[in-house]
């Protein structure tokens, strides 16, 4: 064991200071969410702020009943379908793109920046551009194509960066060996490449699913007559805020956390298996 020197004590103090900062940071980031969780169990006569007037499931039950902003369950289903489709497309496209970027090809620089542009263009611009374009050519926007379209533009760069990182650490000799032994490209991909990159594909899918499930700005003008869940949440904000909204927020957040947890578990299992 090393002796305690002034230098060592100073370092420990610095580390302790940073740890306290980390704790405060977490309170800042999670504190409001916990206040919301607690207030969703507000008694029937309570309001949207503390103090708690009793403890009940009143607002949760109200959430399950018919709501003022529309059919929440249908919106939830739409959001989930959209998130799953976005997840699949993101995982597929980002894998294909990253595989193309393993080679040199003309226009690779332009394509790289084009993919990254999806990160840089604010949702409100995409919403406005596509909505007015569709309007002009006489097609009504709908969540399952115009909504889907802009969601993938937003999630693709994240998945792409993940897959680029995966292929940066990829040992291409494994594929060469398979090729030398006479395997065709499909066999090489199926038997060698895919098993090694599956954890990365899961991570890319996580970005696709969660970012789409929560996306609001890009769907604003593009979901058509039927809302996704974030749009319903936004609609309920224009009315008098009630603890029902907190119950909805809590339920949605818990669902997100469960999904993140599920993705991390799948990733860990696949990652261990691929080693």
């Amino acid at each position, binding site marked *: 064991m090393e002796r305690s020197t002034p230098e060592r004590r100073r370092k420990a103090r610095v580390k302790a200071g940073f740890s306290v900062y980390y704790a405060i940071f977490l309170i800042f980031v999670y504190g409001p969410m916990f206040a919301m969780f607690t207030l969703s169990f507000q008694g029937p006569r309570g309001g949207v702020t503390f103090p708690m007037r009793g403890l009940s499931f009143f607002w949760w039950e109200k959430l399950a009943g018919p709501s003022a902003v529309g059919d929440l369950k249908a919106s939830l289903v739409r959001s989930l379908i959209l998130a799953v489709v976005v997840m699949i497309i993101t995982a597929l496209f980002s894998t294909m793109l990253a595989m193309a970027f393993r080679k040199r090809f003309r226009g690779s620089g332009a394509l790289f920046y084009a993919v990254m542009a999806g990160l840089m263009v604010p949702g409100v611009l995409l919403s406005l551009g596509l909505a007015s374009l569709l309007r002009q050519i006489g097609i009504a926007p709908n969540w399952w194509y115009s909504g889907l379209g802009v969601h993938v*533009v937003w999630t693709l760069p994240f998945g792409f960066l993940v897959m680029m990182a995966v292929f940066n650490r990829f040992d291409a000799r494994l594929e060469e060996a398979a090729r030398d032994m006479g395997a065709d490209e499909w066999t090489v991909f199926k038997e060698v490449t895919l098993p090694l990159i599956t954890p990365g594909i899961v991570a890319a899918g996580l970005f696709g699913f969660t970012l789409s499930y929560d996306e609001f700005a890009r769907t604003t003008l593009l979901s058509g007559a039927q809302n996704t869940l974030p749009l319903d949440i936004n609609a309920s904000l224009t009315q008098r805020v009630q603890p029902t909204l907190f119950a909805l927020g809590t339920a949605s957040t818990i669902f997100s956390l469960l999904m993140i947890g599920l993705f991390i578990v799948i990733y860990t299992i696949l990652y261990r298996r691929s080693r």
Partner: protein
Amino acid sequence: MTTVETYSTLTRTETAPRGLIGAAPPTHAEAEEVQRKYRREPGFPVPILIAPATLWLVVFLFLPLLSIFIFTFWKSTGHGMAPAFTFDNYRAFFVTEGFFDPSNPDFLTPSIFLRTLWTTFRFTISVMAICLILAYPMAYFLSMQVEDFKWQLALFLLVMVPFWTSYLIRAVAWLPMLGRHGLINEFLISIGAIDEPVSFFLYSEFSYTMALVQLYVVLAVGPIFFSLAKIDRTLLEAARDMGATPFQIFREIIAPLSLPGVAIGMIFIFVMLMGEFATAVVVYGGKTSTTGTVILNYYAIANYPFAAVNAFMLMVAMMIGVIVILRVVDIRKEL
């Protein structure tokens, strides 16, 4: 070695017999052509790999942006728009009624739309600065002070999780904190800092800033963390051995090497904040307008060309901002 060389010089001479037993191997050019014909590039063909995503980006990213630009020149018909080539929308964006009239009180006053864009920009810069100040120590702690990799990953994920949850809900969650009976007021009263609840916490610039910082700060932690984690630890050790103080090490090594991460994080937050429109409604009670809300308002009243002009100017402002950041830091080396 020498034999091979002799052989190859021999075969390359013009006089070498061809078409007989022991004929010269194909010339260099011939060999290259054969190779080009039969060489199988490993992996799937690039065009097939990039075609679907490229097509998708053209339809859902480039056409929308291009149409915004085109629609800025069209004219509004009250319930829609019609093709035209007019600069009226730009004019209305920049100048108000009495702009060129010295007797008018609005002489040389920029229009409300230009001022809104300026406010959006100014606000974005201040929130960015606060995010940087909060995020940097966080990323530094995670990358430099936490030594065990598993702990590092766990603590990092814990900070990043909110990024994967709904930002609208996180904005809503500020309501119970900030109101007259909100937690912050209650807390300040309980410690005796104030006697009566203060009302400026909610629906004010304070609440707006606070909520935006909380919503976007994690976006800066990620990139800064990755660039700090990439720094070669032996550099720091070498500097320490040569007697550098911790401050010197930070100024000379850590800060310059982490700049690309800072730039990426700042660009990310910058573009998100410039396009921000929902948070203002939730925690500012819609009392302020950003260019984002202006765009949506004009869309709602069906003046699409004017919405497009605001959107286009927002894009221009963003590009200027991004170029300025890239001027300061060259992140292309990182990508």
